[in-house]
């Protein structure tokens, strides 16, 4: 959508925001300008700490107590917000300015029913009486495509799923027909299939309502789904601003180029390539370099870049870039080829048929007061030596529980798990050291995976001493070697975890896992809580170490693009059961299991030219206490055949290689149905 020539609804000019902290006064956002028109959405992208939330909240003067707007001008419908008295401003909040936050559960009061909370907005800001407010709530819930709005109004927040709640919050924000809608990572906490539904909704509401949308996200894929214009932020300043398509097709700032390269692309070639990495880390805002703030990490840096800070200027029409060498920035495809390298070939065959870890019909059931939770319900998996098995599924699919059953943290209730052919004891306490050594784990939350009171060196030396039998001197030498192999300097040896960033902590956790010289490492969402650039460098690290040490991985993630990037074999799980398993390439090309198909069409690809067929799943993942009969996916399946799916367990359909699909629909029929529906071809997007 081209920007209309009309006056912008929301304008920020030269905004500066300071925080007073223990470190002194920090200039978190410096001299930032943007404009958003009616029916337009402006995407603010950046990694954490880039100041995107501070910018948005500073603009509407909704800062924490230690925050202060020091300079600039913010106009909403021509009214200067920064000069407005507090009273008038408060009247604007909620009425003319709506905000949608990341966590819908904490944005709603848990002790008040939805209907009452929404009605209060209408009564407060629109001066409606109870009956009118009720009608308005009904109308709004209908507009956000809420199934059965009447019933929803009587529910408490905890009785609704995340996607439904986020729709309620959006309805609440749009209740007063605001001029400005700020959405701060509204879909980050949601599953991909739910995210896709909410994104569709936002895109539709954008057309229907007159609001200008300021959309904050770290996800380049999400941006492509709803934004018209995008600003890339870095350490409190804009690096680049452009129309969406232009930014993705021809970025004119090296930072944007690098960001695009950090994200794995769907690429069904038999070669595993590295991702682009950005050396170093975002500078602290009180320690900015003198010249261009990105210069120390930039691949196109020259002497002159470090002398003076380049301003954000229009370089091509409405395309703004803060790079003085913007003409030297190559097209993304060319840059990607040059900046990445092939690391290894995909390994789909088992070397000498050596299966390292195998799970046979594994079940993990939990007793709950009201029945049994079937977290893992009959899973068969095989990981070969040196291979990566990617397990992908939404939250509640039981993918983490599978890993915990393999390593023995959660005992399996039935089935068998074998390591090199030998059956494993149920829990860690009963396994011999030699077995414990073979299986290691990298956990999801980097902040909790290291003991806060133990130094990095201690953390790595402990498994060396305990499982490797090394003495102190040997262990220290080996630990320093491991630190180097995860690209951390030796000076980190004595550091405590709180002195490390999230990515660095995860590197230490990876070093600790490798210290035991395991046969397999279970990676439980190791990168999902990190920034995209850090994710990219960690994926590179995992791949590099795998080649060096011939380790197998079980890589668990909800992020299909990360899984396909790292894995040789992919297993798609849903509600405790494998739905489809096979080589990465066969899983990503038709025929798909209908669930895989829905996942693929829901993944927001960082490429505005790719048109994904909108296959949306209704409802949410059912409770594992109440697994649907027949095929467990049938209540949400867009290709459900009817009674046969509802009543009978589907058969395993075996395709070429070891490709297996758990579905009633025969493979050739699936292939025919899906041939025209998905455009995921890398060539077409290029």
């Amino acid at each position, binding site marked *: 959508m081209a920007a209309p020539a009309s006056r912008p609804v929301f304008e920020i000019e030269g905004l500066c925001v300071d925080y007073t902290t223990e470190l002194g006064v920090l200039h978190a956002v410096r001299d930032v300008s943007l404009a958003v028109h009616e029916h337009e959405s402006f995407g603010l992208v950046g990694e954490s*700490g880039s100041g995107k939330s501070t910018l948005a909240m500073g603009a509407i003067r909704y800062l924490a107590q230690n925050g202060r707007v020091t300079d600039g001008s913010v106009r909403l419908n021509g009214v200067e917000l920064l000069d407005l008295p507090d009273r008038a401003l408060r009247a604007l909040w909620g009425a003319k300015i709506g905000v949608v936050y990341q966590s819908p559960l904490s944005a709603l009061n848990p002790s008040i029913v939805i209907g009452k909370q929404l009605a209060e907005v209408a009564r407060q800001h629109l001066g409606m009486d109870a009956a009118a407010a009720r009608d308005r709530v009904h109308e709004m819930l209908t507009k956000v495509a809420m199934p059965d709005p009447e019933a929803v109004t009587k529910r408490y927040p905890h009785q609704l799923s995340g996607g439904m709640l986020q729709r309620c919050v959006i309805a609440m924000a749009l209740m007063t027909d605001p001029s400005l809608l700020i959405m701060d990572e509204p879909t980050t906490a949601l599953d991909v299939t739910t995210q896709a539904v909410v994104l569709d909704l936002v895109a539709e509401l954008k057309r229907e309502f007159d609001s200008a949308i300021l959309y904050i996200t770290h996800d380049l894929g999400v941006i492509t789904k709803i934004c018209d214009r995008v600003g890339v932020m870095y350490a409190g300043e804009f690096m680049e601003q452009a129309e969406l398509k232009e930014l993705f097709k021809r970025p004119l700032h090296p930072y944007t180029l690098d960001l695009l390269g950090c994200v794995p692309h769907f690429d069904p070639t038999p070669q595993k390539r590295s991702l682009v990495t950005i050396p170093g880390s975002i500078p602290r805002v009180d320690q900015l370099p003198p010249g261009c703030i990105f210069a120390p990490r930039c691949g196109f840096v020259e002497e002159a870049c470090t002398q003076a800070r380049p301003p954000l200027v229009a370089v091509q029409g409405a395309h703004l870039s803060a790079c003085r060498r913007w003409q030297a920035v190559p097209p993304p495809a060319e840059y990607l080829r040059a900046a990445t390298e092939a690391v290894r070939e995909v390994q789909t065959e088992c070397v000498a048929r050596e299966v390292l870890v195998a799970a046979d019909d594994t079940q993990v059931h939990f007793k709950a007061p009201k029945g049994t939770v079937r977290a893992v319900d009959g899973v068969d998996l095989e990981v070969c030596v040196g291979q990566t098995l990617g397990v992908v599924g939404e939250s509640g699919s039981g993918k983490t529980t599978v890993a915990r059953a393999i390593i023995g943290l959660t005992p399996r209730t039935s089935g068998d798990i074998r390591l090199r052919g030998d059956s494993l004891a149920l829990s860690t306490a009963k396994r011999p050291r030699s077995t414990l050594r073979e299986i290691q784990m990298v956990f999801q939350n980097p902040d909790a995976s290291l003991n806060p009171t133990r130094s990095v060196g201690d953390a790595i030396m402990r498994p060396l001493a305990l499982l490797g039998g090394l003495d102190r001197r040997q262990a220290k030498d080996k630990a320093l070697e491991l630190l180097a192999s995860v690209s951390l300097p030796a000076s980190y040896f004595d550091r405590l975890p709180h002195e490390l960033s999230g990515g660095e902590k995860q590197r230490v956790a990876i070093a600790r896992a490798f210290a035991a010289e395991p046969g397999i490492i279970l990676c439980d969402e190791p990168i999902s809580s990190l920034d995209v650039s850090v994710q990219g460098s960690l994926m590179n690290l995992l791949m590099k170490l795998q080649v060096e040490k011939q380790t197998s991985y079980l890589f668990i993630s909800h992020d299909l693009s990360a899984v396909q990037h790292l894995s040789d074999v992919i297993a798609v799980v849903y509600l405790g059961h494998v739905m489809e398993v096979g080589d990465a390439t066969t899983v990503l090309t038709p025929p798909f299991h209908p669930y895989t198909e829905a996942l693929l069409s829901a993944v927001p690809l960082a490429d505005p030219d790719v048109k994904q067929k909108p296959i949306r799943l209704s409802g949410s993942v059912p409770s594992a206490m109440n697994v649907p009969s027949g095929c467990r996916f049938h209540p949400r399946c867009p290709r459900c055949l009817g009674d046969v799916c509802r009543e009978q367990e589907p058969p395993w359909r075996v395709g070429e290689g070891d490709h297996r699909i758990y579905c009633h629909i025969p493979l050739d029929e699936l292939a025919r149905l899906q041939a025209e529906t998905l455009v995921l071809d890398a060539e077409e997007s290029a």
Partner: protein
Amino acid sequence: MVEPNVKDELFDTAIMDEEAVKGFSDPAQQERPRTWRLYWRRLLKRPAALVGTVIFCFFLFLAVFGPWIAPYDYEKQSAELRLATPTLSHPFGADQFGRDILSRIIVGTRNIFLLGGFGTAIAVVIGTAIGLFSGYVGGSIDEVVMRLLDVLLSFPSLLLALVLLSTVGPSNINIVFVVAILYIPMVARVVRSMVLDLKNKEFVEAARVRGETRSYVLFREILPNSLPPLLVEASMRFSYSIFLVASLGFLGLGVQPPSPDWGLQINQARAFFAIAPWVLLFPACTIAVLVIATNLMSDGLRQVMLPGGGRN
């Protein structure tokens, strides 16, 4: 009504921003604030806590060096000084036997600190052991232990202390044990809640995965991370133990005469309150000052070590 929630969220983002800014700093140029130095810096920014700490340290000093600092012999009686009003030479006046009140207070400090301190220390050691074990083992054992502690907690503490002391007879050792018995359940509960929080953390699971023994997990992985709340709890317990020891003294079950004891002093001064209020007021005020100071200090410790209400 959107606003309160929004404000909360926003506060979080602001904190996150601040931490993100810190987290992304370049390690090479970053000064490395060690945990304790960070605590100290935060303490300096809280005047109330700082004042409490200073006063507490002053009393600690008196407890150690009291007998050498006291201007007079605390036992020396003098007929002409009976119930003397405060003067420059006897700033707090004298009691019914003509003994210098200031000296008696100064010398009595040590008793309070010893009885309360040892009692609290024993309670912390035993309570920590119980809390660690009960929390980590969990299940029905945990249930039984916690209910037993609840029974102890359900008695009013002074009443329980009186019953115990009147059974075994008042002596310094017995007072120490009574204080310990009263405070074990409270310490145990704090430690147990920390264990419940920590035992499913990933770093503890990582320890189990590499086959660490139970005692290693408890004492090397969990206990060090429970120290800040434990220290806060211990300082709180100590301030209450001062109260308790003084109350017992007042009721005649504490330190026996002629040892100087604040509670005892107050009790004996009651008869003369109408004609010589200072005999009662000064020891009472001293107790109040020390208890308030210790409370301020432990409150400060809480804010310094557990900012955000115990988020670890």
